[in-house]
């Protein structure tokens, strides 16, 4: 049997904002083709983990290491992470007044393409690409002429994130509560869009509070993050259990649970 190397390997990751530690020893491994779900109470550090992996300057990594496709992720600038195939769909995509979404997306696409020695697209060709991809997430095509996320509805913001993901075709996509704020139909559309992007080489990490999205994007593993570390991992059924029982029952067993890969 040929052993695949992991897409992502997080080892004993500690991170803080200012003096406050938020991640307290995260271990986590994602293999090609896998879908992981991360669940956990509010404030447990899910978005922090995603942001640290994406390279947000606000967070300081105090310990640990992260390998992305075998390379040291933490030493890379955020743009280099993106160029190597890392993608984060933000829980709260920021509004940027005055920067047109289509122009931003083209700059993003071309930066990534260029770094890979692949063809950059002019506005016309890029428009065509966007049009075909927009269908995937059923995004109103007039939105892309507006400023990035400015005045977008919650659902529109999430669709826009997935549109970008589909354009950039990342190796690893972390979707931070992409399902929150989506109505039932939108959830299905977005989930199907995500599924269409899956290959045997890339991987998806879905951060969510609800098992519903996992009905569409079926996870191989469900990991529970609590107070800055993973306290339990299981199969898809764990998501149902969480939704039925909440997280309290986990706290008691936290110390006894073997964590990580």
């Amino acid at each position: 049997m040929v052993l695949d190397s992991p897409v992502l390997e997080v080892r004993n990751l500690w991170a803080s904002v200012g003096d406050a530690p938020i991640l307290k020893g995260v271990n986590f491994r994602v293999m090609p083709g896998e879908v992981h779900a991360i669940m956990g109470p509010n404030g447990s550090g899910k978005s922090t983990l995603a942001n640290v992996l994406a390279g947000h300057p606000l967070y300081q990594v105090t310990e640990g290491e992260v390998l992305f496709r075998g390379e040291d992720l933490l030493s890379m600038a955020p743009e280099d992470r993106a160029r190597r195939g890392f993608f984060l769909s933000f829980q709260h995509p920021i509004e940027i007044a005055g920067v047109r979404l289509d122009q931003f997306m083209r700059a993003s696409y071309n930066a990534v393409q260029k770094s890979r020695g692949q063809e950059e697209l002019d506005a016309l060709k890029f428009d065509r690409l966007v049009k075909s991809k927009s269908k995937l997430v059923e995004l109103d095509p007039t939105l892309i002429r507006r400023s990035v996320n400015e005045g977008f509805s919650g659902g529109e913001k999430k669709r826009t994130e997935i549109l970008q993901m589909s354009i950039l075709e990342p190796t690893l996509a972390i979707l931070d509560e992409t399902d929150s704020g989506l109505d039932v139909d939108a959830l299905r559309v977005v989930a199907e869009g995500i599924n269409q992007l899956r290959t045997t080489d890339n991987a998806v990490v879905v951060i969510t509070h609800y098992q519903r999205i996992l009905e569409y994007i079926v996870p191989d593993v469900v990991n529970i993050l609590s107070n800055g570390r993973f306290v339990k991992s299981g199969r898809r059924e764990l998501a149902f259990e969480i939704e039925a029982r909440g997280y309290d029952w986990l706290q008691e067993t936290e110390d006894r649970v073997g964590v990580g890969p």
Partner: protein
Amino acid sequence: MQQQTAYETPYLEAFDAFQGGHASGDPAFIQAHRREAIERFGAQGFPTARRGNEAWKYTDVGPLARIPFQLPDPSRGALVKQGQLKTASFGSGEWPKLVFVDGTYSEELSNLPRSRNGVTICNLAEAMTRRPEVVEQHLGRLASQEENGFTALNAAFVHDGAFVHVSKDYAAEHPVLIINLSSGKHPDSVSHPRALIVAEEGAGATVVEMHASLKGSRYFTNAVTEVVVTPGATVRHYRVQRQSPHAYHIATIKAEVGRDATFDSAAVDMGASLARNNLGVTMAGEEGHAALNGLYLVGDAQHVDNEVVIDHAAPNTSSRELYKGILDGKSRSVFHGSIIVRKDAQKVNASQADKNLLLSEQAEADTKPAFWIYADDVKCGHGAANGQLDENALFYLQARGIDRASARTMLVRAFAREIVQLIDLAPLRDYVDRQVIKVIPQLQSGAA
């Protein structure tokens, strides 16, 4: 009378040679106007005293005054080729263009359409003979009451200049470009660009005034522009200043807006080590409207000062001012906006805002609003905001593969866009946008 200091001497000396020399053929009223002006300049001097001088409190013209700038030697005329105009020019080749090199009108570089009915575009020296009645009526009328010596100094050397006149109910077919170019061949030289723009009743004109340099040399530009917007007329007046980083740029723009008239202006400042714009607009007739917009991008130790005075002398007039600044390095900006509403000018609606984006810790932006309201039924609004680049926005762009420098450029450009979009002339919008993109990385390196 103020005591005359040595700072003024070189200019007083140059005057006699100028008045008796190549400008001696000008009409008598111009010669008289100049004589009066040089006396006023001698009396007023440069506004170097800052204590108790509110208008010049934040801008030190001492460094400018200390350099004895000379009129360029006309015998060493600078040869500038058409191709060199490219960076200072934009739009269609059809557009009328008045080009001045180091303050001197260049017929070869200019492009004047054959005189059309209703529209006269020429240099001032020619206008003195072609339209003496207009020149005599308006030249110096709006810009003569100035408190400071710069306007007087300009008037003392008025000879060449730009002249745009649109007769009653005519609209100028194309925008008019006035290009003031410094060749860099006359170090430490001074020029006194002058423009007179008159739109008669119901007329329309768009004028773009460009101040640019071919080289990074040190010189002094002392410009005066007068804009007469008579009842029912519309004038768009846009200025772009991208002079050498060692240049001193003083500009006075005076406009009078009549009944039902519209004055739309935008000033873009990117160059000069010291730039000071005195914009004064009088709302002289009911239902007049003025939009005064400004954008400045400065770095290093650049200093830019916008003094904007809007005088609502008539009721039911409105004005909207929006200035935005981008500051890097140790640069400094001053926005000094005064709104005057006269006693009987009821139902005036005036708003003013100055917003700055500070790209470095050492940059400083000062906003000094002043209101002089003597009517009681008035709507006046004021806003000011200084901020930094949004780290979260930068990160968002980077997280999508865009490098930090490009991300920064995108955000700064977005900040400037609000002003760029207010320019009602698409080719100029594109030109300014391109210049903004070009200048941003230079500001950054200036800071490093």
